[in-house]
């Protein structure tokens, strides 16, 4: 796939040395690590949608989607929710401390395929993180795309990621950004309701549109359904799948989803190609 690098050094199972350059608190349980390679000649190219395996000493590894930055800049951002041993260990890292990194792995959002079309991006919860590089990619060639809309839903207003960037995205890059939360209190003046309810509120041409969705699996299924009601065909909808992952290079077998290895055939999938599997329970 164009622009995608699958970093394969002598052994894809050996982590490389990266360091925490910055740590940004995004919400009560989510943070972003800005990582820089120790080896300054190492390229930090990646394609939007790809992920890295991050290792903390003695604890283990976890797959984390790359959440930025805009162009190849010698460092890579990872937005992480601290819910398990490894992610909590990542949360406890100090500036300058070392992590092991393997990657980038996986395939990319269909940025090329979307050229000349309208784009709808639907994100749920932390799902905006793997989509942010796609958003940046669209911005870097804004004139190549038609109407762009970002629909973003999260549980509560405190959980909304990157909200400080939304005004810039609306103003400078001319994209429609609509946000909603599952429940709100009086201080919230925005929308309340699930993210699917935002679809009728943005303008796009369903016959010439690509959609990219990322969030909990239930949210992605219903978002895809809502988009088809709005006129998109399933082959124009792209989602990202998540399964247990151990090696990220197609050897351990854990991430299989039907015939696909999520680590190398995914994590981005065209919806029509996996719909029969996604609808089968416990598959």
């Amino acid at each position, binding site marked *: 796939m164009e622009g995608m690098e*699958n970093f*394969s050094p*002598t*052994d*894809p*199972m*050996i*982590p490389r*040395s990266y360091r925490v350059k910055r740590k940004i608190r995004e919400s009560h349980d989510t943070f972003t690590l800005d990582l820089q390679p120790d080896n300054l000649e190492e390229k930090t190219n990646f394609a939007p949608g790809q992920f890295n395996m991050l290792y903390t*000493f*003695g*604890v*283990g*590894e976890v797959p984390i989607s790359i959440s930025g930055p805009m162009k190849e800049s010698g460092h890579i951002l990872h937005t992480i929710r601290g*819910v*398990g041993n490894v992610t909590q260990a990542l949360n406890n890292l*100090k500036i*300058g*401390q*070392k992590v*092991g990194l393997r990657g980038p792995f996986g395939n990319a959002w269909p940025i090329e395929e979307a050229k000349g079309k309208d784009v709808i991006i639907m994100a749920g919860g932390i799902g905006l993180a793997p989509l942010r590089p796609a958003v940046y990619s669209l911005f870097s060639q804004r004139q190549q795309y038609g109407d762009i809309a970002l629909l973003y839903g999260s549980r509560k207003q405190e959980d909304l990621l990157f909200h400080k960037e939304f005004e810039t995205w609306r103003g400078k890059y001319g994209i429609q950004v609509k946000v909603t939360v599952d429940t709100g209190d009086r201080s919230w003046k925005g929308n309340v309701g699930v993210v699917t309810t935002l679809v009728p509120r943005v303008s796009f041409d369903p016959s010439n549109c690509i959609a990219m969705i990322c969030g909990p699996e239930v949210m992605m299924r219903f978002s895809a359904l809502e988009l088809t009601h709005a006129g998109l065909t399933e082959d124009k909808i792209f989602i990202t799948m*998540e*399964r*247990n992952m*151990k*090696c990220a*290079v*197609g*050897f*351990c*077998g*854990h991430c*299989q989803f*039907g*015939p696909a*290895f999520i680590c*190398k055939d995914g994590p981005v999938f065209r919806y029509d190609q996996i719909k*029969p599997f996604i609808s*089968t*329970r*416990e*598959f």
Partner: protein
Amino acid sequence: MNKSEVIDKEGLNRLIQILIGRGYEVVGPTVRDEAIIYDQVFSIEDFPAGWTDEQEGGIYRLKKRSDEALFGYNLGPHSWKKFLHPPERKLWQAQKEGLDFDIIPEKPEHKKYAFLGARSCELHAVAIQDKVFMQGTHTDLHYQALRKNALFVAVNCGQAASTCFCVSMQTGPEVENGHDLVLTEVLDDKRHDFLIEAGSEAGKNILKEVKAKPAGEGDIKKTKEIIANTATQMGRKMDTENIKELLYENLNHLNWDKIAERCLSCANCTMVCPTCFCSTVEDVTDITGEHAERWQKWDSCFTMDFSSIHGGVVRNSTKSRYRQWMVHKLASWQDQFDTSGCVGCGRCITWCPVGIDLTQEVGLIRKSEPGQSGILSGNEGQNENS
């Protein structure tokens, strides 16, 4: 066509010594713990002379033969993956340096294995694992190192077990590819020797040193008869027609529930299957916390946490895990690697404690298609697929 030659038991012993002399660790069949397994061998004395195996669903017994055949058995619980893709392997270790750490990779082993006694189905299984570990997006350097140095002295099967079905999987019984040398044991009142042929340059090279006698037409004819006879003895048959579509379209078939009533989720099938390749990684530290290691270990899709995500498990029920194994083995594998994942060796049938037979299960799904689309509770009646 490589020329056929003949060696006697002494010649076979010579072959083993030549291989050892050339730095190979020779691995072959031997009797241990009431089974025929693969381990390092040093001469034909280590072979299971006069033993055969009786196999059925859930049954494996050694039985004494009336002759002293060296290869008069079929397959035991081991396969060559035990050596090429070992059950445990250290990937790297890390040493703490203050707040930092250094990673020290394990270098790939350059051991030379000579696998003696490999059957046709097993060679197909090795070729399948080659695809997984060496022909994908990434290469498993450790597997590659061992594989490149490995030598295969194959054996044409002189008999088939009742759990064998290589014929219907088109993986045997005759050895055709993937071997460096191939033997066919010829044993009757008058003779006990082996037809031997090379399958590669390396094999030819070694064969020269063995100093075999040229084979006569009668010898070649005899071995063809033996192989043809083996092919008639298959105890099972897999109907492979459109098997991929059949399984993909029947993910909710009632039969999965029926299998789940018997399956113990013990993972035996995945251990003995020569193509199963799943593994896990384990990060361990020592007591001081200064030293960490990452190990790769065999894993099985039958384990409870194989598919765990977000504190939950995708495949919670035994039914879903059995379905995953079988659909992967017979259907998804084709999309992934352009072959079936099954080589018809029958080990999963033999070593399943409750004797689940995947050839039979495929038949059951096929028989009632179209028709039942499966309702979760086995007690509800069968519905016609509308």
